[in-house]
């Protein structure tokens, strides 16, 4: 029998079972890591699920570790610069592709879409030699340069979708008033794409912040490594003993700001992620 909503009790129970199951599966590893990061060293290897006392020792250790602090600075510089430069050149290009007449538009868009799927590994040796030749190997600018591989095509693709979605009447009115194409971009369309830029920028930032392969391959000294590389190379007193408390604390330090961003901009991020992938 069905109740007023047209759903049976069994269906309701099954539905909530799934909701809880999905939530536990999604959140458990993160919460377990969070708990581990507050677990005292002497209890870390106890098999009790809940520690007797909680401690900040791992966080203090992590922030007293110059390698980790330097890697945070490096990651902020590299990811931040990558996103800013990609947004400037990517948005200009996207305006042209989304709004201006251009002969090879279809081909250009298809090429950009293919590039968003381009495997980074395929140019690893070429970039390695190129960075060495340019004297940019093991430098932050070198890393930023290589990050354009994924941030530029992504920014252009998503921003083009945004420019396309804006109503035509706005710019037509401006053109009738005698505005130049550049003025139309600057004064009419750009302000409207700010939400798009925020979501694109956030996603590009997350991509650059999390990038591992290039950072691992193109940096060698501690003063140039980014966060993922340093977290992957955390070692304890001996090579066989991994300092799990510190690893978990460091992991939380680099993850929680991202999670806060995601919570605040959930709608924008989802909009950016799905732009272009879904055609209504």
């Amino acid at each position, binding site marked *: 029998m069905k109740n007023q909503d047209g759903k049976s009790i069994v269906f309701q129970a099954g539905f909530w079972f799934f909701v809880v199951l999905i939530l536990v599966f999604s959140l458990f590893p993160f919460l377990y890591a969070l708990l581990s990061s507050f677990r005292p060293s002497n209890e870390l290897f106890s098999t009790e699920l809940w520690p007797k006392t909680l401690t900040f020792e791992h966080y203090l250790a992590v922030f007293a570790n110059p390698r980790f602090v330097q890697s945070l600075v490096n990651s902020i510089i590299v990811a931040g610069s990558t996103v800013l430069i990609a947004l400037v050149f990517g948005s200009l290009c996207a305006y042209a592709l989304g709004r201006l007449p251009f002969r090879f538009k279809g081909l250009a868009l298809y090429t950009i879409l293919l590039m968003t799927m381009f495997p980074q590994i395929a140019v690893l040796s070429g970039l390695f030699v190129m960075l060495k030749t340019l004297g940019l190997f093991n430098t932050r600018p070198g890393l930023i340069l*290589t990050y354009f591989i994924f941030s530029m095509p992504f920014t252009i693709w998503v921003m083009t979708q945004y420019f396309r979605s804006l109503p035509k009447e706005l710019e037509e009115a401006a053109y009738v008033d005698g505005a130049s194409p550049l003025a139309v971009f600057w004064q009419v369309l750009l302000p409207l794409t700010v939400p798009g830029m925020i979501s694109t920028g956030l996603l590009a930032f997350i991509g650059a912040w999390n990038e591992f392969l290039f950072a691992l391959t193109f940096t060698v000294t501690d003063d140039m490594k980014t966060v993922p590389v340093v977290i992957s190379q955390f070692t304890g007193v001996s090579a066989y003993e991994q300092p799990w408390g510190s690893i978990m604390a460091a992991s939380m330090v680099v993850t929680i700001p991202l999670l806060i961003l995601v919570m605040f901009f959930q709608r924008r991020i989802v909009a950016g992620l799905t732009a272009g992938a879904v055609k209504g």
Partner: protein
Amino acid sequence: MARGGIDLYDRQRRLAWILIVPAVLIVVGVIGYPLLQVIVYSFMEYKLDGVTPATFVGLNNYLFVLTDPEWWRAVYNTLVFSVFSVTIETVLGLLVALVANAQFKGRTFFRIAILVPWAIPTVVSSQIWKWMFNDVYGVVNVLLANLNLIPEKVAWLATPETALPVIIAVDVWKTTPFMALLILAGLQTIPSDMYEAGAIDGATGVKTFFYLTLPFIMPTLLVALIFRTLDALRVFDIFYIMVGGRGDMATMSTYNQLQLIDFLDAGVGSATSVIILLFIMFFVVIYTRFSKTSFQ
């Protein structure tokens, strides 16, 4: 008026070129040029030690890779990983998306919570799961032992037979939210009157799903599948962190990176890159064939 229109058109076209050129230059600089170099190096004996001069060796590097059992092991690992992770992620993603699309109390919290695994850097998630599956102190072994489900603690990451499923689980955990979001966006484009029409025709829940919902989101699902497969085929981070350095647990990407960085062999490394690229292009062609309509 007509003159003005032509002027404007010309000015727009000129501006388009000016705006596109810088982006094209950057992309050519970081993708086009290195890619050409990779193709050239792949035919050369080229060590990155800065001592040995590079020489042309024809197809030798390709022969080396294609006759190396470790390479084929890496191809096998990558394919097993890709097939299982993408399939499970699609099914679970669909399920999560259907739940997230329903009306219920706490839906916003639910939608944010499922994003958590996706927002965590892959290196971090790999470390977390490596800790969870630690053979002595990991929570998984502790729980299973407490429940008497295993006679003794399992060294999950020590053999490919148990490590591969764990690695697939990490990827499923991390990437299902992405699949769910894409599918959810597709679900939200279904007009509600379609469901009403279906209900009038007497369609039940299961029928509605297979005859209405699924066909409608098929294009979205295909695009999501393409993105995910290409992503899975180039997997690097999870394997490198969780089982890095083991010859029998390599993927195509970790094999390639090992040749280039640990053995400083740009020749073999580049040949591997070209093979991977051809491999992935093959998938792109097949997929775009199958989903022409959704690809424009």
